[in-house]
């Protein structure tokens, strides 16, 4: 069975380590915050100028001056700090964020990512995504393995305009956990009940399949 949105978030959360500073993109990545393992502390960075983002507020604590990069009202945790957008991206470009999680339209076997622009459709903008993918050492892309038409999103070469070049090393899709190195996709784990054959079939790029592909454990 393909992973649900929640399971995707759960699997990504396994990449967290105690003491990590983490930037979570909009959508499924945001859900990762709900699955931080017990006894582990992570600090969430929001690129609009907040380190130490907390959960959503109550009606009593909501504050229009306190939002995240998705423009949602949020709260802070103990030890949080506010800073300017320039300082926020200095932090990001400087390589201080330990893990960045974001979605994508396409990823290719050379680590290129396309996530912001579909020619012919209205272009809304890249927001902070280009800075994030160009700067982070440790990025996890989480997305469905194929699009709604069943076409693979793990390609030999991205067809859409890029968000960043050669920067993606890890993908958590609804079918598999895949690493990218040496110009190839490498299958590491499969979603519970998903066959290697299905993953191979839905991966358009070159995929290296080891003898043993364990199921993800949650």
């Amino acid at each position, binding site marked *: 069975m393909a992973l649900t949105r929640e399971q995707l978030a759960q699997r990504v959360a396994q990449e967290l380590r105690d003491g990590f500073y983490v930037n979570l993109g909009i959508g499924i990545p945001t859900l990762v915050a709900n699955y931080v393992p017990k006894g582990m502390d992570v600090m969430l960075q*929001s*690129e*609009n*100028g*907040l380190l130490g983002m907390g*959960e*959503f*507020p*109550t*009606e009593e604590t*909501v*504050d*229009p*001056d*306190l*939002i*995240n990069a*998705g*423009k*949602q*009202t*949020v709260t802070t945790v103990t030890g949080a700090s*506010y*800073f*300017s*957008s*320039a300082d*926020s*991206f*200095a932090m*990001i*470009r400087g390589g201080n964020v330990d893990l960045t999680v974001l979605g994508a339209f396409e990823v290719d076997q050379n680590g*290129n990512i396309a996530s912001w*622009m579909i020619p012919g459709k*209205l*272009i*809304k*903008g*890249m*927001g*902070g*995504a*280009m*800075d994030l993918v*160009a*700067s982070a050492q440790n990025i996890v892309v989480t997305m469905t393995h194929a699009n709604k038409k069943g076409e693979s999103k793990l390609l030999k070469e991205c067809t859409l*305009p*890029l*968000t*960043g*070049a*050669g920067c993606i090393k890890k993908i958590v899709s609804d079918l598999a956990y895949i690493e990218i190195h040496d110009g190839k996709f490498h299958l590491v784990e499969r979603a519970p009940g998903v066959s290697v054959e299905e993953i191979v079939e839905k991966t358009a790029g070159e995929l290296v399949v080891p003898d043993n592909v364990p199921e993800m454990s949650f």
Partner: protein
Amino acid sequence: MSGFNKVVTNYDEALAGLTDDMTLIVGGFGLCGIPEGLIAKIKELGVRGLTCVSNNAGVDGFGLGLLLEDKQIRKMIASYVGENALFEQQLLSGELEVELTPQGTLAEKMRAGGAGIPAFFTPAGYGTPIAEGKEEREYNGKMHILEESITGEFALVKAWKADTMGNLVYRKTAMNFNPMAATAGKITVAEVEEIVEAGELDPNHIHTPGIYVNRVIKGTFEKRIEQLTLKK
């Protein structure tokens, strides 16, 4: 301190000198930390042909979206402009030009503009459409592109508190682009929630020193929330 009293008491004075075809650097992220009253006044003034540099373009009927209604903006430099039907319409009809810029690059362009740094290399955008026509160079084994700084005739920022000498303090994530915007304007106007006497703000914790600020006006703020999300 007559020479350093930056307080003005009406919006006409706050925006004196603003004319057609100027470039405005405007603080804010989404609808958070935007100079609401100054934007409303620009709508009233009716100046046209503006280039607005701001992370977003507001929404229909609020923020910079107000200036789209009468087509006052000719060009928008922003990182994300998705929340605005009028914007879309004017973009498609060719009445509005947009220069999409990665958010961190946009922040750094403003910061560099204010800091007398005319250009800098950044890895953001290398290998993407953003890099087209830009100089590329490898540093530390990684490709970077050369980006130029931005300044404007006016910078319009929103702060929490100002003192009479123009020292500014921001609040929470309403800071966002405002500190850089404040440095990048030839004339910087700060619209604030509260004006205090000089000396009342802690000198260790002033976000924007008064040297950058030409005019301070006390505003009233609606602080509209774009995405109200509450704990379930």
